[in-house]
């Protein structure tokens, strides 16, 4: 099956430019799509993970209940994050929209020394 998936990818890369066969697709466009895919997969996963960790430590429930609730919600956060990446106006917007809240929440969980000293 893995081989199947790899094959598809190869076919995809051939097929993308002919989606609209009259126009050729620029390298910049391809780069932007790749950037969004990476943002969706890794940025989305990071956002979902960090949000679930934040919920697990802040929800006013017993520890195990908070962990379960947070983990159960992570998949919808991930799905919405992936959709956001492809709906955002540019690839850069997509990255910022994912990384900014991720970083903010990560700081909440593990406050860096310079914030604590303020």
């Amino acid at each position, binding site marked *: *099956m*893995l081989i*199947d*998936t790899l*094959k*598809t*990818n190869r*076919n*995809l890369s*051939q*097929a993308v430019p*002919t*989606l*609209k*066969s009259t126009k050729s697709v620029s390298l910049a*466009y391809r780069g*932007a*799509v790749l950037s*969004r895919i990476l943002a969706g997969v890794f940025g989305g996963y990071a956002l*979902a*993970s*960090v949000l*679930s*960790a934040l*919920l*697990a*430590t802040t929800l006013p*429930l*017993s*520890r*195990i*209940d*908070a*962990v*379960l*609730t*947070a*983990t*159960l919600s*992570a*998949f*919808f956060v*991930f*799905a919405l994050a*992936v*959709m956001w990446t*492809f*709906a955002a106006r540019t690839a850069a917007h997509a990255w910022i929209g994912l990384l900014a809240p991720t970083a903010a929440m990560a700081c909440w*969980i593990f406050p860096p020394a310079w914030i604590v000293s303020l």
Partner: protein
Amino acid sequence: MKEGFRPAMAWLHTWGGLVFTWLLFAIFFAGTLSFYREEITLWMQPELHRVQSSVDQFDGVAFALKELQQRAPDAKRWSINFPDARDATISISWTKDGRFDRNATAVIDPNNGAVLNPRATLGGTFFRSFHYSLMAGPLGVWIVGAATMMMLVALITGVIIHKKIFKDFFTFRPQKSPGRSWLDAHNVSGVMSLPFHLMITYTGLVTLMFTFVPAAATIAYQGDQALFLKEAFSRKEAPAASGQPAALTDLLPLLIKTRTHWHGAEIGGVTINNPGDTVAVIDITRKRGATLAARAEPVLRFDGVSGQQLNEFTNDSVAKSTYGVFYGLHVAWYAGFFLRALSFVMGITGCVMIASGAVLWTVKRRDKHTGDSSATGYRFVEAFNVAGIAGLMVASAIYFWANRLLPVNLQERIDWEMRCLFIAWLLTLAHAILRDKPTAAWRDQFWLAGFLIALLPVLNAVTGGLSLFEAMLQNHWRLAGVDLSTMPLAAVLAWTGWRIGLPKKTTSAKRNSKSRIVDLEELEEAA
């Protein structure tokens, strides 16, 4: 990528869906068969076909204890699984170090204590394991996880790009152009069972959620995995053995007491910790599937020497129940005859939705690109479609045939059954690539799969199984059901093969009919 929210979602749905189509189809297909895992396993072990159901659940308990005493007097733990409506045998297992070992198990006829020797096979469990791991270990689990995540995204975006979702409940136009009827097939199968698809996709992620998103547990428990698992699944630790021998109390009265305590609920199994020791502890677990929630069956614990009740472990939290219900919805242990059949049919609509989506993608592009540079690419996508969909049916049928035709005493028998499946699958891919016309490849493979499946009841009867006729006479419907289901399945496959092979209708109707459905391509062009 397209400008605008909806076209962007259409793009994500199409390309994201396409990348994972074959994988998702295989996952859905294997998962659908897993609803009947125990029935398939029974079919694949003809040695067990003639075991009669016992009158009472606890009829064979004395035989089970005798067998455990003989085989593993010094084990750390004994386990007994009682017969139920889906499995007439009583099965025992034991362990010296706490780990499960395939060889430390036995299957017993509860009516006479005979030790049964079913052939080595994974049976229906193969489909369940393939369903979540592709038989490729942790890497396979993660690949399935990624595909399932994409499925969730494809379902949500599919709803978003679909303007007239309610009208499409009733729209199927098989006589229209091929692109149109494939889109209809995709829409109808997708929309009709959308609640099921969303449920099964999300709950599928939930079954392995601590593997996929360990962040919350890791941070909240500061990396203490053992403590987390203990709190999450109420792992019941048994006290350590004292080393002093003591006679085990009589099990049967405890079982009957427990059944009364739970108002006549069926018992799933019993675990005896430190058998023959002064600190022996007996845990009796209610049968799973009595409620919707899974992994939360109550346990009654008794002192193994005096027979005194020690504790009752029950589920105590809303979040755990929620998790248990999600888990339970996915594995459908709760499902009786009707709900199980409904789940199976819903699973098939999922397969149809994914398959028609994949076919739609190629049909829409096939005619546009004949002769140009990308024709070879489409040719390969089409060949993978054939092998991924029809080929998987052929390979699965071969698995059932291998189960009956491989010698019973073959070394690595379990592996050989699976190898037959995977080799057959590769051969269908080779056939799909080499066959001159894609429609011919589709037809060949659908017909071959239909043929192999239609003959399964015959194979069953001539290779030592209880034949369909006998099974029906003996009211053995769990077994007869497997044979009976082959006929409609084979008929559908034969019909599909015949329909695909028909010459194409002219496509002039396409422009005349004013479509009321958002067409992905029109969306793309509008943008």
